[in-house]
Structures are given as structure tokens and as C-alpha cells.
């Protein structure tokens, strides 16, 4: 029995793909594997899935955000292709990250003053993406006001997101200033500070 036949036999789970404005149904069939069979203080296992397809990946490579039949939204983080001894691709595994939030990408625009320096900051929403958000460290204390601390957050966006350290992200009404942008295989990780502080 060929390896690809075995993979295709179990490819019964269907995914929809987000094209930026609507869901495109049934873009690919594969096996959606579980990943969270352990308990720890870290929750990454609870957010990840492996989607295993045969050699026919459907339209998986045309989308960065997908949805399961139960309505769960995931970002595609990476793709690995398996080949047999004849270098023929027989399976592909996609690592998916649960995206429970939506982030607005905000561009800060300024006007040049007569001195040549920028002034009059305005915010413009450039795009909205599904995202994952997680706090990566304990709150960072204010340098001058000991009762105030600022949360450090990382937000994972789909690879098509156009962001830079000049951008902000808004998730659930909260503004985050992007400090660092790291482009990974098929996703973008933004390390951010919350714009507003919190009482310690």
C-alpha cells in the first residue's frame, strides 16, 4: 500500500480559508491531529494543531488563516513536506496556531511641522487580521511611577500582515505599541508593550 494512500484514507477533516473579506469553504481535506495531551503552566500545546494532508494540499498554500468545521480559527505557522525514497511527496503537515482574537493594524501618521519634525499624530486602521495574543513576561514597572506597570505581550499575525515598529495593534479595544517584528516561516510575531499602564 502506498504511503499516500494511507494518508488520503484518513483525510476526512475539511478546512475553510479566510481571503481577507470572507470564508472560502472547503479549501483542503486532511487529518486534524490533537496536540494538547499534557498539562503545564505553558499553554502553547493547547493552541496548536497539526493538519496532515496527502500530496494534494488543495488550496492550503493560498491561505494563511483557516477555519475548522467547528468554527475554530487557526493561523498556518509552517509547512513540512514528507517525501518517499523516490523523492515523491506523499504527505504534508501544517502546524496551526489557534487565533482567538482579531487585531487591527494601525498606522501612525504625522504632519511635518515648519521645523521639519513630525507632529499631530493620527491613527488609521490599515487592516484587520486574526491573531493569537499572549503575555510573555510579568509586568514591567514604570521607571518613574512605582504604582504603574506595563504589560509585555506577543501577538502572532498571519504571514501576509504588513506591520512594522511604526505600527500599533489594537485587540479588544486595547492599544499595543510594537517594539519588535519577527517574521517566522509563515507567520509574523510582534513583541509589544501595552500603551496604557495598569495599577500594580
Amino acid at each position, binding site marked *: 500500500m502506498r504511503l499516500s494512500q494511507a494518508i488520503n484514507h484518513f483525510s476526512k477533516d475539511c478546512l475553510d480559508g479566510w481571503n481577507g473579506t470572507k470564508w472560502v469553504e472547503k479549501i483542503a481535506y486532511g487529518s486534524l491531529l490533537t496536540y494538547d495531551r499534557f498539562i503545564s503552566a505553558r499553554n502553547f500545546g493547547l493552541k496548536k494543531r497539526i493538519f496532515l494532508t496527502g500530496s494534494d494540499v488543495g488550496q492550503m498554500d493560498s491561505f494563511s488563516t483557516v477555519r475548522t468545521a467547528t468554527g475554530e480559527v487557526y493561523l498556518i505557522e509552517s509547512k513540512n513536506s514528507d517525501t518517499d525514497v523516490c523523492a515523491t511527496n506523499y504527505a504534508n503537515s501544517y502546524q496551526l496556531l489557534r487565533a482567538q482574537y482579531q487585531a487591527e493594524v494601525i498606522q501612525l501618521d504625522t504632519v*511635518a511641522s515648519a*521645523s521639519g519634525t513630525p507632529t499631530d499624530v493620527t491613527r488609521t486602521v490599515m487592516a484587520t487580521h486574526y491573531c493569537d495574543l499572549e503575555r510573555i513576561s510579568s509586568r514591567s514597572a514604570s521607571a518613574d511611577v512605582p504604582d504603574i506597570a506595563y504589560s509585555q505581550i506577543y501577538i502572532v499575525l498571519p504571514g501576509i500582515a504588513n506591520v512594522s*515598529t511604526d505600527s500599533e495593534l489594537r485587540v479588544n479595544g486595547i492599544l499595543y505599541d510594537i517594539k519588535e517584528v519577527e517574521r517566522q516561516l509563515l507567520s509574523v510575531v510582534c513583541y509589544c508593550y501595552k500603551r496604557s499602564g495598569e495599577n500594580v
Partner: protein
Amino acid sequence: MNRNEFTLALKSTIDKKGVDLAAALGVAQFLDMDDTTNASTILQGEEDVIVWQFATLDESPIDPLYTAIFSVGAKTSTDASNYDMLQFISSVQDTFKKGGNIPIYNYSGTVAGTTLGGTMTIVQSGVEAQEYDKESGYRFVSVAARVNRET
């Protein structure tokens, strides 16, 4: 010039001098280090930047006479022998040289003000020791000026 816009006009005048200096040196940015909107984004990059920081503005002895203290300098990153840094510092010293007079106008709006707000006379200008922040070096010229507001 009204007293309630004079400090802003002074700050914007220093901005204008610095922007013109940066353009003449071919440096991409002239940055106020107290600018919470732009500072971190620009300073974390590897490009050379002309930087400055407004320290104090004291009535001396009383309005319309003031003493202003501020620092103007540069940040460099990949700078073998530190020659770029010292070239920038030389130019900063020349722009804000002791005995120099700088007219004050309000450049904070989109159109430059045309009413003379006052005059700044540099009375002290000295190069400070270099500081470091991870991969970058910073060096400043400490400037003290006597300022009079036009009434």
C-alpha cells in the same frame, strides 16, 4: 511673543536648526530624545541619528530674560574609529558655537511663524564624554544659552 508660546517657539527653533544640520550632514533623522512617539522606534535602528534633549529653561533673573540648557549630539552604530561620531560632533559644535546668535521663531505649526520671538546667544558649548547603549554610542555637546523673549 507671548510668554505662553515662547518655550514652544524656542524648542521648535532648536528643532529647525537640528533638522537643517541633519540634512546637511546626510543623516536621516534629527530626533528629540524626549519624543515618546518616535524615539524608541528610531533609536533602536542602526542608522546614525542627530539627537538632542532639552534640559532646563530658567528665568534669569526674570522674564523676559532666561538661561536655557540643552544637549545636542549624535548616535552612531557601525562606526570604526568613531570618526563618524566626531564629524557629527564637530558640525554640532559649529552650529551651536559659543558666541553664536540664533533668532527664535515658532516653527511648531505647518507654516513657520514670521514674528521674531526672541534671540538665543550661546554662552557655553562643550563636548561631553561618550556614552553607550548596547550596540550604539552616544555623544553630546552640552550647550548653555542666554535667551531673551521679544516683548
